[in-house]
């Protein structure tokens, strides 16, 4: 088993910031990331093999990547951290090697997942998530479509639209479910917690206006049409409770629909580690309970960035530093580190208030369940429709665990990432209780699907085989 001072999961902004803070203070770091290139989603890079001359050199990213050459840092790209087999130990798997690493402190910066919401046609080719669109443009230099509708809820729609325009697409409209503008002006004061972010947001909005992209608020895509791929999308007004005005439908032609309904923290590893979580829709759903130092309820295990609570890149960078500082302070309690932590805490506080203000402005309708028709697949891996679920859940008796095992919902390749939240909304609504009070299915390893062959590199003592295959093996 390997050992290191600090093990970091994720080489996005939060993980890289944590790594830099740690190695510069003399600690050894093992940094594991499931992408081939560092940067995470925000600083996603083109593959090395690409020879494009217009490769964007992002100054901030380059500075963050400098840490990767540090002698005390062991960087493992293409590496899935798939389990937390014991406290202080991570299990990882990569094509080149797999095994366990023991660390004094673990910092999980695993990023976020798109939270797709089902609606009729959401599984048509041409309908992709906002994160998927960003991946294609930033990570592969591929334009997802020529005539694109961007729809859903939250500030990421603006970012996605911006990138689509830069990639040469025509954005037919940005369709925002929140009644954005009316609230924005009244909340401008609260946004001043981070003036630079505010300026950035306003510049996006202005650039969209310059590109003559209609920005429709209080509306939602109610259906995607086309065969065999997307041809058009239908849009209708949606009120704050999620009620859809189907009498007022407009249809836009498009070959690509980019849907973003916010992000959910990737909490698989903190779940597997046994950390306590609470449910906060503003932070993306389930989020680990953390101290001011960003330590979870499992001692020595920190979690930062969007992987802990959705907050964006600035918060991620600051949280990464904070967790590394906190881990450092465990080893070297000294006044200057305390001072650094104090300043960082104030910075985090300001960014946190900005997050609250943004979340408030973009507050989505209470539910999007009215969009789902009986024929709509809720679980796309196993093709389980609302009709099938509704039939089973009709009397309200069946819980999430039972619906999972009877329909196979969430048992496919996505491991529930794209459907469990919707199932929870359905069951909670039907029972009139909160999503947080439901009995959720247990998270099981691996944290992400992992190649069986990649798990077999570690040398372990040979097995003790039973003398008699028929006899008991346990206790």
């Amino acid at each position, binding site marked *: 088993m390997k050992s290191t001072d600090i093990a970091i999961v994720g080489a996005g902004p939060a993980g890289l910031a944590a790594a830099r803070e740690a190695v510069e203070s003399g600690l050894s770091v093992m940094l594991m990331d499931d992408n081939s290139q560092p940067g995470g989603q925000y600083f996603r890079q083109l593959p090395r093999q690409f020879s494009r001359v217009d490769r964007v050199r992002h100054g901030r990213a380059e500075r963050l990547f400098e840490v990767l050459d540090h002698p005390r840092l062991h960087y493992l790209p293409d590496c899935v951290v798939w389990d937390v087999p014991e406290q202080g130990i991570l299990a990882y798997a990569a094509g080149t090697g797999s095994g366990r690493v023991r660390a004094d402190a673990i910092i999980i910066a695993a990023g976020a997942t798109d939270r797709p919401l089902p609606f009729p046609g959401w599984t048509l080719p041409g309908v992709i998530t906002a994160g998927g669109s960003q991946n294609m443009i930033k990570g592969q230099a591929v334009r997802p479509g020529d005539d694109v509708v961007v729809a859903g809820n939250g500030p990421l729609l603006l970012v996605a639209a911006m990138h689509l325009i830069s990639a040469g697409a025509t954005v037919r409209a940005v369709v925002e479910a929140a009644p954005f503008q009316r609230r924005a002006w009244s909340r401008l004061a609260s946004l001043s917690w981070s003036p630079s972010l505010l300026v950035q947001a306003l510049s996006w909005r202005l650039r969209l206006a310059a590109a003559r992209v209609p920005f429709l608020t209080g509306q939602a895509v109610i259906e995607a049409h086309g065969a065999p791929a997307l041809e058009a999308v239908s849009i209708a007004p949606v009120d704050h409770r999620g009620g859809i005005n189907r009498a007022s439908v407009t249809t836009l032609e498009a070959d690509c629909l980019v849907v973003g309904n916010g992000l959910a923290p990737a909490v698989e590893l903190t779940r597997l580690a046994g950390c306590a979580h609470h449910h906060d829709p503003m932070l993306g759903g389930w989020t680990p309970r953390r101290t001011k130092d960003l330590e979870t309820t499992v001692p020595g295990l920190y979690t930062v960035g969007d992987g802990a609570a959705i907050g964006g890149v600035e918060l991620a960078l600051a949280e990464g530093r904070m967790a590394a500082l906190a881990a450092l302070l465990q080893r070297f309690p000294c006044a200057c580190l305390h001072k650094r932590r104090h300043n960082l805490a104030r910075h985090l506080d300001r960014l946190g208030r900005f997050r609250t203000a943004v979340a408030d402005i973009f507050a989505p309708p209470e539910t999007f369940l009215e969009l789902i028709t009986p024929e709509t697949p809720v679980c796309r891996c196993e093709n389980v429709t609302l009709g099938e679920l509704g039939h089973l859940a009709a009397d309200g008796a069946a819980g999430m665990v039972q619906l999972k095992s009877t329909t196979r919902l969430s048992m*496919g*390749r996505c491991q529930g990432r794209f459907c469990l939240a919707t199932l929870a909304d359905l069951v909670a609504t039907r029972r009139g209780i909160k999503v947080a009070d439901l009995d959720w299915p247990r998270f099981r390893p*691996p944290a992400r699907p992992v190649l069986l062959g990649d798990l077999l590199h570690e040398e372990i003592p040979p097995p003790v085989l*039973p003398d008699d295959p028929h006899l008991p093996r346990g206790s």
Partner: protein
Amino acid sequence: MAPQDGLRIETVVIGAGITGLSTALFLARAGREVMVLDRGDPWGESSGGNAGTLSLQVKHPLVLDLMQLSLDLWEAEAGSRNLGYERTGGVRVALSQDEVVMLKKSVALQQRHGYGFDYLEGKALHRAVPWLGPGVLAASLSPRDAFSSPLRCGPQLLRAVSEAGVDIVDHREVQAIEPDGGYRLVTPAGAIRCDIVVIAAGVWSGHISAMLGVELPLMVDVNMLTITEPVDHVLDRVVTHIGGVLSLKQYPNGTCMIGGGWQGKGNPESGTKELDYEQLLHNLRIAARVVPGLRQLRILRSWSGFESVAPDALPVLGRLPGREGVFIATGARGGYSLGPAQGMLLAELITDGHTRLPADSFDPARLV
């Protein structure tokens, strides 16, 4: 439907897993009045989360007749409803010269008990089963081996039992059993009185029998399982291993289920069920050795589940010693595969006083 205190039922079965439901089904078909109680969700523990292997050739020689009966019942029942049952035949592999010797001995022993299985080695084996890896030296083949997907079987069997007129009451834990001429079962939602009690509570069966003052030395296995992503169909037989450390099959949806009785960590009292990292790796390693193509598949989930095993791993099937009207079925390795036959024999014992197959070697009295 909430049974009130003092409700009187002829027979109460404790445990809505494969064994309890099978017992209830055959009792109901014999005209008995039956209620099944479960402390959690029906089919919610090992019946719902086991590997689903139904293999004749891996069984202890003393259990071969029981397993053959069980396979007959699986097949008969699967004729009228989808129990996720598929009779693929099976291959039981040996990976070393020592294991080849063990396999030959086992095949000869099974022959003496009246069960002939084909034995193949080398090129003949690899021609017959081309997806086996070069590390497989020999194998025995059984045309009767099969599987049943537990997730498919559960809802269908529950429906069959309900249709037979049995009440299945979930989340009704039996907290105490008091003899009152018959028996009074104390639950958080009131007591239920009955003449006959059937203990089919899997790994909690010992706990229930202890309520009646009968201590059974049952062991707890915590078996680990892993499922892969779905892929095109390749594995056209279930795979088992002479040393009992691998079970493998590909379900109709294309996923591959990997088991083999490798031990996780767990405790039935607290309900904790964890994996053991090194044991899991051993399990995956042997699976990849037997079927090298598995290396290319992603695993989606690993989990563990409880199995109640008697010290001799034979069924604990029959009357609970010293307690008139109390019957038990648990303790057999591979309880899922044997469930239907155990249910049938127990129902016969209750209704007729005797069973179609000799069950002396399964008598719970041997453990007391």
